[in-house]
């Protein structure tokens, strides 16, 4: 079965510290991988997708096929990064559907 695991429910760091939100998936094939973010009182929105190899708001995510991981990283966390982060690989059988992790709540403290 296709599964995605975000092992940390809550991650708390201080402003300026590096942050890494972990995501592991169990998959056959080569899924597309995404990180979505939900800021307080805002709607869920796409943060980045691995195929784009882009950096959004200072965040990057590297796909490690050997470890089947797609961790989200930022070298210097900011208070405005506090939010709920979801890792979401696409469904291997239907790429219109995403498999959602349970999310990690990131709190960046001043």
């Amino acid at each position, binding site marked *: 079965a296709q599964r995605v695991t975000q092992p940390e429910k809550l991650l708390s760091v201080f402003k300026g510290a590096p942050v890494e939100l972990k995501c592991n998936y169990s998959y056959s094939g080569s899924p*597309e991988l*995404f990180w*979505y973010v939900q800021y307080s009182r805002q*709607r*869920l*929105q*796409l943060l980045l*997708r691995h195929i784009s190899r882009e950096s959004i708001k200072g965040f990057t995510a590297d796909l490690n096929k050997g470890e089947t991981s797609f961790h989200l990283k930022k070298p210097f966390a900011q208070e405005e990064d506090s939010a709920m982060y*979801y890792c979401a690989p*696409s469904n291997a059988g239907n*790429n*219109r*559907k*995403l498999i*959602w*992790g*349970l*999310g990690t709540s990131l709190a960046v403290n001043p």
Partner: protein
Amino acid sequence: DAGITQSPRYKITETGRQVTLMCHQTWSHSYMFWYRQDLGHGLRLIYYSAAADITDKGEVPDGYVVSRSKTENFPLTLESATRSQTSVYFCASSPTSKPDTQYFGPGTRLTVL
């Protein structure tokens, strides 16, 4: 972001009542989705639709009904609401050109008493 809207934003109802949550998008996206978000479960797909008049079940469809007579609208109906359906409901849409990118509505917080 104003391209996809949900109504109502908040709803309180009683067990056994029928409730319809509305979702409207102005982008003419082919795909639309309904999710529920609960603590400890993350986002779970209820139903999705590939186009007008084409719908399919997600992970947790029981107790819900959807329809899609027009591309822009995707209402979700709880036929006989139960307390376990208390949740935050999100509608999302996806364009044909980027099938994996989903654009979310603001959510509807539903409480079933």
